[in-house]
């Protein structure tokens, strides 16, 4: 044995110590799994017909980069100020945050981003490919036509938009009341499209002669003339009723309308609700008469709710059968009508998920009102607005139909869309623009495959940036589920609600009901966003890496595979599923 130490001896410390760095131990060789940064699709983006990069927009807002957020919207949607107001925001229904508390107020955020960015005079910095010498004619300056021209123009095409009305905008200009979409907002958005080089020719109806000229002078034609001819109610006395769409048009042109008393609005779509709410603002007492039930109404749910709050009455399961003049009314000024309504009932059978209603025997009821408005839908103005079924070489896509004729013709907007919404019209314009660009570059047969490759997630929405091979190109189509979110990182927080007029206040004028959020509120709201599937540089991967193998260079993260053991902690910790773990191939 060793000799005993005496207390005076200094016993050398024998501990593991080395001046060689632990970097010498390349623990990466132990790895069976490899973590990687893999961005995925957020459910909101996939649900947005325009395929906006919502998680990224929210991320940019939370970082205070409002202009960048605005440009990110503009990459996919030319009308953020409009959509922030009138879109039915399917994104919010899809939002994963619903599982924790409430969805992000995406529409309010979109509006904030746009209003905030346009309040400065600095223009958006958008990618635009230089002129390729090709010309495209667009029939109709509604949302679909304008979107087509916007996207085509950015892809290097010269676009001429022909519009019969004295001003552009289509349904946005003439069909949506000012309390939902102020005229000034619309004008600003259209101006921006003109600024990138789109020519809008108003009071220029596309006639047979113009069509011939287009066939000769243009390389393609987009037809987005919408449904502007109201469907007529075919019952006795229908001629006494006003047309709803025309009425809205009159109001938007500024015509003075002097009405009073009670009014019945027949229909259940957005036009019926807009008519009823406009009447309420003019001091009338409107009743919406709908043949199905409230839950079956095609009008957007929040619109119906607000209408009812504003005092609009709803009569369900009634279908008009005749309109008669009230014999007791003495003069024309206080004349009233008696509308006889057939009572309806819900049949056991459904048609495509929608309740079918049938007459409830011969039960009827009557409604005595001063005015009757019909808003039961609209159809195309002219026969050529609708694609004919006879063409051989045609491609039916989710939001458009493309036909190979002398020049390729694309039908879009309400003419082809299942959901008649502004955002679907934008989707249509984007689809048409990409389809035409593929057609000119790679030919007819490449269209479908190219469209598939720039889808957002697995739905029909397309991404222009993905088409252009930019940032979103590498994003996986997998749609992030709530279960894939590391919810431990998120605390419950109430959704931020922008200032809103009370129903009593809103009835007094055509002023907008909802105000734009403040910057502070918007940033707070943006911070609620999970940023599903995208990296927002939260850095938890790096903080938790036991091997210090997560590297950051110029704000880009990468895994140092010399040391990464493949433990997967980074992937598990990632709050938003922007990483993946794959088996190491050796």
């Amino acid at each position, binding site marked *: 044995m060793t000799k005993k*130490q005496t*207390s005076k001896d200094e*016993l050398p*410390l*024998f501990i*593991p*110590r*080395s*001046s060689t760095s632990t970097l010498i131990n390349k623990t990466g060789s132990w790895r069976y799994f490899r973590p990687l940064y893999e961005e995925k699709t957020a459910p909101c983006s996939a649900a947005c017909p325009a395929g906006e990069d919502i998680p990224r927009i929210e991320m940019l807002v939370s970082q205070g980069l409002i202009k960048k957020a605005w440009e990110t919207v503009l990459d996919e949607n030319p009308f953020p100020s409009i959509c922030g107001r009138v879109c039915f925001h399917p994104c919010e229904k899809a939002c994963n945050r619903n599982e924790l508390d409430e969805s992000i107020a995406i529409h309010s955020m979109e509006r904030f981003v746009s209003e905030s960015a346009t309040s400065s005079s600095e223009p958006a910095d958008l990618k635009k490919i230089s002129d390729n010498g090709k010309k495209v004619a667009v029939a109709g300056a509604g949302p679909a036509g304008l979107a087509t021209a916007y996207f085509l123009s950015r892809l290097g095409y010269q676009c001429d938009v022909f519009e019969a009305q004295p001003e552009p905008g289509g349904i946005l200009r003439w069909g949506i009341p000012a309390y939902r979409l102020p005229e000034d907002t619309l004008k600003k958005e259209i101006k921006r499209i003109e600024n990138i080089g789109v020519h809008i020719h108003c009071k220029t109806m596309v006639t047979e002669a113009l069509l011939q000229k287009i066939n000769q002078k243009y390389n393609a034609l987009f037809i987005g003339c919408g449904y502007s001819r109201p469907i007529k109610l075919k019952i006795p006395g229908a001629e006494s009723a006003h047309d709803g769409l025309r009425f809205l048009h009159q109001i938007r042109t500024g015509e003075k309308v002097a009405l009073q008393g009670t009014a019945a609005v027949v229909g259940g779509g957005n036009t019926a609700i807009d008519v009823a709410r406009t009447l309420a603002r003019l001091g009338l007492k409107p009743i919406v008469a709908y043949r199905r039930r409230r839950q079956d109404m095609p009008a957007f749910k929040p619109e119906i709710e607000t209408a009812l709050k504003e005092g609009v009455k709803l009569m369900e399961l009634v279908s008009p059968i005749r309109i008669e003049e009230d014999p007791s009314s003495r003069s024309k000024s206080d004349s009233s009508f008696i509308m006889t309504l057939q009572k309806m009932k819900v049949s056991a059978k459904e048609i495509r998920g929608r309740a079918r209603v049938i007459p409830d025997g011969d039960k009827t009821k009557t409604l005595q009102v001063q005015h009757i408005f019909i808003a039961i839908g609209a159809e195309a103005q002219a026969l050529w607005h609708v694609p004919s079924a006879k063409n051989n070489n045609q491609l039916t896509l989710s939001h458009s139909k493309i036909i190979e004729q002398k020049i390729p013709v694309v039908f879009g907007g309400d003419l082809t869309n299942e959901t008649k919404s502004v955002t679907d019209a934008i989707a249509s314009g984007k689809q048409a623009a990409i389809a035409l660009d593929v057609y000119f570059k790679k030919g007819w047969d490449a269209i479908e495959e190219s469209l598939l490759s720039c889808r957002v997630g697995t739905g029909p929405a397309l991404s222009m940036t993905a088409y252009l091979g930019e940032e979103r190109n590498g994003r996986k189509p997998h749609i992030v589920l709530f279960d894939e979110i590391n919810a431990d990182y998120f605390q419950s927080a109430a959704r931020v609600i922008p200032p809103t007029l009370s129903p009593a206040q809103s009835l007094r004028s055509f002023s907008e009901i909802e105000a734009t959020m403040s910057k502070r509120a918007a940033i707070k709201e943006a911070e609620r966003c999970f940023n599903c599937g995208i990296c927002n540089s939260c850095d938890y991967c790096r903080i938790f890496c036991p091997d210090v193998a997560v590297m950051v260079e110029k704000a880009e993260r990468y895994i140092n595979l010399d040391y990464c053991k493949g433990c997967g902690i980074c992937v598990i910790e990632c709050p938003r599923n922007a990483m993946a773990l794959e088996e190491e191939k050796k």
Partner: protein
Amino acid sequence: MKKVLEGSHAVSEAVRLARVQMISAYPITPQTHIVEAISAFCADGTMNARFLCVESEHSAMAAVIGAASSGVRAFTATSSHGLAYMHELLHWASGARLPIVMADVNRALGPGWNIWLDQTDSLSQRDTGWIQFYCEDGQEVLDTTLQAFRLAESVNLPVMVLLDAFFLSHTYEPVEVPDQEQVDQFLPPLSPRIQLDTANPFAIYQMVAPSAYMEMRYNIQLAMELVTSRFSEIEDEFETIFGRKHGPLEAVQCEDAEIILATAGTTASTCRHVITDLRKKGEKAGLLKLKMFRPYPTDQIRRHLGQAQKVAVIDRNFSFGASGIFAQEIKSALCNKDVRPPVFGYVAGLGGRDVTPQTLEEIYWQTKNNNIPKDESVWIGLNQELVESWSN
């Protein structure tokens, strides 16, 4: 200056006087008063130290290990479950040869949930490579804590200073609190032998192959073997400056004793009175107060107990399936001696139950009246009615 101090605050005062640079702790009854006072010292500027709040004892020990590795004087305190939670890091601290000082207030482990005295918490850490000192009163606590820093820094091993829950930690006694100047004379600033330095990077505590691990363990044992003599030198120096010493153990009237009671902590105080009374009655009783438990002072134990006729060990702790832990250790110290007294093991006062002079006298007489122990350990003061009811 003499002050009336709570046992816990005797530790706090020593830590202040030792100019500890880093403290990290997590509160647990009955330890909390120790770090409460220290955190106040840090907050009001009395101490120039970093007090790091953490979320657990495991982290507290990890934090002081980190601090000590960077070459600063570090301290923590805990009790019972907190100590158990530190367990793996206790091994680390000693293996890393860091001169950390910790106060542990001996408290029972649950369940049943119990905050009172029981020494099993620290005794079950006996193999972690920490030096352990069981203290009897407030003065010894203060003095031992100061000595602990000297000792730890001299042999590069961590030291645990132990106090009985409530009987010592929460009892107020007059304690001589030395001047800072005197303490500075006794305890110079730490000159670390291990000091991580970002300006001169090196790696420590990495993997060691079988070819060197055993030597590393042996190196720790050699350091442990140094402790007894180092502690004695340190105590001598302490005595020169402060005029008192306590010793690694204390033999009270053991020279001619026929029966020696051996115990640790505050129970030793009670024993002092009991043997005085017994001596008055003509009984040749002695007391061996056990203070230093690691390293184990085998030679001294043999010397003090070897001549007795019988030894009675009072354990306020227990190793299930075996016996009281001090009794085991005393038996093992004596077993290689040709002539040795029989060792009577008694278990008493677990979970804060009082060990009164009557309890100790009962132990004495039971030892005297039996030639050999009735059992490896005899449980004193059990509620017999309850125990018998279990056999029905």
